[in-house]
């Protein structure tokens, strides 16, 4: 086993080592037991008091959604206004301009929904003011929104026959004070000490060995890069994201950033088990997610470390694997690992250019986002998984001859309707979006947009198709990574992906919470020998099959025209 693979294993192992105790601790705090975070209580009390929140007030699932959606709307308006006026505001040492309304629309939504699609480049598209008070702010609150939402699900699955599902403001505040803020501090410190800039000064410059003068952007980057990963946001300070030597200076920071993005999603899975006192349930979910992760990771690792056959034919030696678009300091195996982690978890930060990945890797990255439930984003990953769980429970319940029930609650027509709707949504948005852009590309190549459709794509043929498919998949999965060849900063892409982002963020939160709320209110049926236990590995296989079948069936033709066609042409 070579050193590169060992590095990957070590990174994953360390992630689990952090995530497991974090999950246990989250469950203790949610249960109201003594936890390591109790020292935060006075700060939280202060926040509640100053905001006029009664932390003891309980909310129904509808009230939760009302709170969640209204505060999100306020953040959106706030972000939009700052983005379109940033050029004339303070904290702008580089003199960057304000964003165009369509770009601001896209940027505001994109960060609001934890996606971070970034149709701009951080060095020129934002000011320090918006980087800190819009981008970093939204990176905190959007992650906390997801976590708060999944806590409602936790509560609904645990409490029997109730509509009192906790307080959204408490869940939200505590997510920040107890998870996001303290861990971000640690990560930011680690990054800063490894060379990531932390200053409010403007661009610096140096003269290179060739004698050219090079401008180097700076800023309070370390703090943002911490929450960017911890909150599974992915939007970088610099345009080149974590491939940039200042955003991700060395292998150590690379490990820190990789670990940071997976710990909350994994911790939440384990927290669920501790919280429900069904640890096996968590283990099964974790096993299914990990199996999916490995199914995507292994082919990618093989493809990337194997090198490009087209280059091989020219006689070029590729000892390091396919290194186009990759950083030498990370290597092919690590870049492959990152590309899968960042796509299954809705981070979307990159440490290599996915546009240069091998076709197999592109297919796996796309599938990671198409399933969107292997670990998944902060909170929302589990919510997405819950939809698959409901469908799997339904089909397998029928297969064993019993009206399907999940943790003692019957799944009936109403829940199925919501689950089916949410399950359809993802393919609908991705395929319809890609179809629309293909249609415009073919039939209106000369439309007078900032970038004409004819010059949208960096590549012809299947890879060009992949660029469009990837963009909508990334938007619908709230991921934020891209095949960066795509010319996406124009009104069509800004608006269309902006709308996709909005729908694909909030409906998949509303749906699972509605199901959870309905289930919590149902009669509780104790388990008998005839009950199909949802914490058995057999059932795990069923969930895995459902996830696989739903995404494989919906996306097979699209993947065929993109990465598969590219693969078969290449090999």
């Amino acid at each position, binding site marked *: 086993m070579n050193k590169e693979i060992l590095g990957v294993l070590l990174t994953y192992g360390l992630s689990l080592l952090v995530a497991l105790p974090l999950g246990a601790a989250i469950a203790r705090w949610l249960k109201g037991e003594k936890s390591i975070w109790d020292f935060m209580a006075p700060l939280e009390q202060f926040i509640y008091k100053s905001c006029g929140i009664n932390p003891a007030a309980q909310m129904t699932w509808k009230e939760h959604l009302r709170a969640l959606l209204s505060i999100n709307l306020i953040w959106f308006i706030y972000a939009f206004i700052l983005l379109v006026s940033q050029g004339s505001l303070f904290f702008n040492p580089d003199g960057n301009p304000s964003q165009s309304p369509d770009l601001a629309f896209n940027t505001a939504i994109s960060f609001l929904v934890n996606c971070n699609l970034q149709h701009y480049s951080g060095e020129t598209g934002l000011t320090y003011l918006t980087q800190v008070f819009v981008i970093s702010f939204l990176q905190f609150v959007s992650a906390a929104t997801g976590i708060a939402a999944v806590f409602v699900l936790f509560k609904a699955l645990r409490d029997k026959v109730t509509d009192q599902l906790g307080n959204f403001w408490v869940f939200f505040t505590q997510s920040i004070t107890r998870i996001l803020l303290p861990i971000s501090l640690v990560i930011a410190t680690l990054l800063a000490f490894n060379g990531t800039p932390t200053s409010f000064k403007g661009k610096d410059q140096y003269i290179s060995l060739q004698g050219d003068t090079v401008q180097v952007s700076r800023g309070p980057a370390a703090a943002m890069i911490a929450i960017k990963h911890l909150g599974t946001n992915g939007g970088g300070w610099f345009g080149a994201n974590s491939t940039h030597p200042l955003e991700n200076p060395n292998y150590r920071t690379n490990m820190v950033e990789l670990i940071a993005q997976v710990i909350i999603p994994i911790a939440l899975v384990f927290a669920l088990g501790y919280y429900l006192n069904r640890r096996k349930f968590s283990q099964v979910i974790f096993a299914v997610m990990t199996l999916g992760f490995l199914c995507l990771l292994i082919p990618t690792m093989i493809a990337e470390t194997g090198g490009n056959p087209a280059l091989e034919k020219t006689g070029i030696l590729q000892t390091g694997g396919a290194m186009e678009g990759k950083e030498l300091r990370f290597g092919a195996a690590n870049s492959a690992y990152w590309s899968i982690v960042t796509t299954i978890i809705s981070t979307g930060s990159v440490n290599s250019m996915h546009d240069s990945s091998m076709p197999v890797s592109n297919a796996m990255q796309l599938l990671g986002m198409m399933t969107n439930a292997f670990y998944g984003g902060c909170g929302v990953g589990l919510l997405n998984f819950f939809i698959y769980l409901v*469908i799997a429970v339904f089909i397998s319940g029928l297969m064993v001859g019993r*009206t399907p029930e999940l943790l003692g609650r019957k*799944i009936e027509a109403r829940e*199925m309707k919501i689950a089916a709707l949410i399950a359809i949504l993802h393919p609908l948005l991705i395929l319809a979006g890609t179809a629309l852009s293909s249609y415009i590309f073919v039939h209106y190549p000369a439309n007078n947009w900032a970038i004409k459709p004819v010059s949208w794509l960096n590549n012809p043929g299947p890879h060009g198709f992949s660029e469009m498919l990837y963009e909508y998949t990334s938007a619908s999965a709230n991921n934020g990574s891209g095949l960066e060849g795509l010319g996406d900063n124009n009104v069509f892409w800004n608006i269309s992906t902006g709308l996709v982002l909005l729908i694909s963020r909030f409906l998949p939160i509303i749906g699972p919470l509605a199901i959870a709320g309905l289930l919590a209110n149902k009669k*509780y*049926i104790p388990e008998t020998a005839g009950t199909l*236990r949802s914490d058995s590995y057999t059932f795990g296989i069923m969930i895995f*099959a459902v996830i696989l079948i739903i995404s494989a069936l919906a996306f097979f033709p699209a993947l065929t025209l993109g990465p598969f066609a590219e693969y078969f042409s290449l090999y």
Partner: protein
Amino acid sequence: MSIHRKKTYRLLDPVLLRTAFRQSFLKLHPGLMIKNPVMFTVEIGSAVMLIVVLYAIFTGDTTQGSTAYNLAVFLVLLLTLVFANFAEAIAEARGKAQADSLRKTRQDTPAKQLITQNGRREISLQSSSSLRLNDLFICEAGDIIPMDGEILEGIATIDESAITGESAPVIREAGGDKSSVTGGTKVLSDRIIVRVTTSPGESFLDKMIALVEGANRQKTPNEIALTILLASFTIVFIIVCVTLKPFADYAQTPITIAAYISLFVCLIPTTIGGLLSAIGIAGMDRALRANVIAKSGKAVETAGDIDTLLLDKTGTITIGNRKATSFYPADGIDERTFIQLAALSSLADETPEGKSILELAAQKGCSPRSQPGMEFIAFTAETRSSGVNLPDGRQIRKGAEDSIRSRVEKAGNIFPENLAGRVKSIAENGGTPLVVIMNNTMQGVIELQDIIKPGMQDRFHRLRKMGVKTVMVTGDNPLTAKYIAAKAGVDDFIAEATPADKMNYIRQEQGKGKLVAMMGDGTNDAPALAQADVGVAMNSGTQAAKEAGNMVDLDNDPTKLIEVVEIGKQLLITRGTLTTFSIANDVAKYFAIVPALFISSIPALQGLNIMKLESPETAILSAVIFNALIIPLLIPLALRGVPYKPIGAAALLRRNLLIYGLGGLVIPFLGIKLIDLFIGLFI
């Protein structure tokens, strides 16, 4: 465990096949098809293909592929629809045939209606169809009872074989729990006055006939939820197919209409969509074959979910009554002599217990005859014993321990210690001791035991594996009840049960979120039957009981509940497994069709053609043909139902996933390849 089965139609009876065949074309009417959204989209697809074919014929335009190919695709799609309709039609036809045989029993029969005019009762001869609710009629020996009703006066023996198939006549009498009579049965003796209890067309049988005929079938909750899931799969594939057009434009690949429609029809879950209603009807039909009339499909489905089952001890768990199992003579009494005495004392005893003593004695080679001069003493509540005075002056009595003991001790004799011990041990083991004395001296003890029906332990074991808790309801004292419960293997018992106890038990279980089923016949069972989630009333029971329950068992077989539970489970399993099979099929169909669509513009996709199909046209045709053929191939399974195996939920899921999931994945690869090879011979 019904004693008898009515004539069952072979799975594919030729007569039924003809009816079903005709029906499968009549059902192509769009107004009927729209009820099944999945198959309706196939019908739209076929209509479009028809237009394409006609267009090609009249204009000679072959840009959409050769006319023959388009025609072939159209015909296969049409066949898919016909097959799906056929599945439903054959299920309906079988249900109808079953219902018709029941309906024969309720053809118009003359009714002797009793009309009160000027205070005088008169009999007027009417047709049974003119009888209305609460009308009175008279039936005498030889009459067919015209309508379901309740006996107001009289007692009669009735031949119910037309309904139950059981040839032994039954006794029905006014008052009590056996006052209900069923239309179509025949009075064998005596005369009864009956009040009509149902309006014409509203009897349970009418309801059931409507259910199996499919005319009046309401979708059950699980069926609705499944339809939603299938509809959403269909929508996903509509999205897939519609978006494929701009994708193909980008890839500069023209795709023919035939290819689009074929892809769509192959992807949507036509297999389960086509069989879904057939499965539902077949489930009701299976219930009817078990001689159970369900008031709704939901009741059958709920039966599959039952957690707790209340069963009466007598007649269900144990054979009707106690039986003599052993003779224990007192010290100094010869065994043969004792058996002789015991038999003599029971000669005139008409109770089942008394008869069983004679049987046991006969087995032991002792069968005394009744002789002139014997004076039989009947059982009275006062003496609590019965017996015989022999001509030679010997007085033999048998009875319960306490009454005999006082008698013996009053006469100055002793009640031997060892016999007292025997009496006690019999009682502790769930038996009933009968003490026999002659001239007030102890002769011995007869042991009566409840005999548990053969096979009951197995059944309870099976139920436990299904996750169903069984509860025995008995009037016995807790000690006896406990013993029998343990011996039969039931999980719990209600001893010294009153109707209120039953009711409370059901409420208590339901409070814990469990679904409870019970069987009952008496009027005092009615509240509990109504309270239970599945209440099965016996056909012989009172009208009140039948109204309260949601199923009626025509066989009056108390173990029928177990069968009903299995029918309910089978119904769900058949739906679940065929859905899985249908969806799993899509993988192979994708591998057949998608490369075929794009191979002309992206030749590299030949690598995706892992089945190595002949040409794009044969690939598409093979896929649609497979898709069509799989429906009739699965009809027998849909009608018979996927067998339920009580091996625990996880094991069952593993088993069904392996057979129907993995099978559904692999079989179409083989099937499509074979069809392709076959078509290849002609092209």
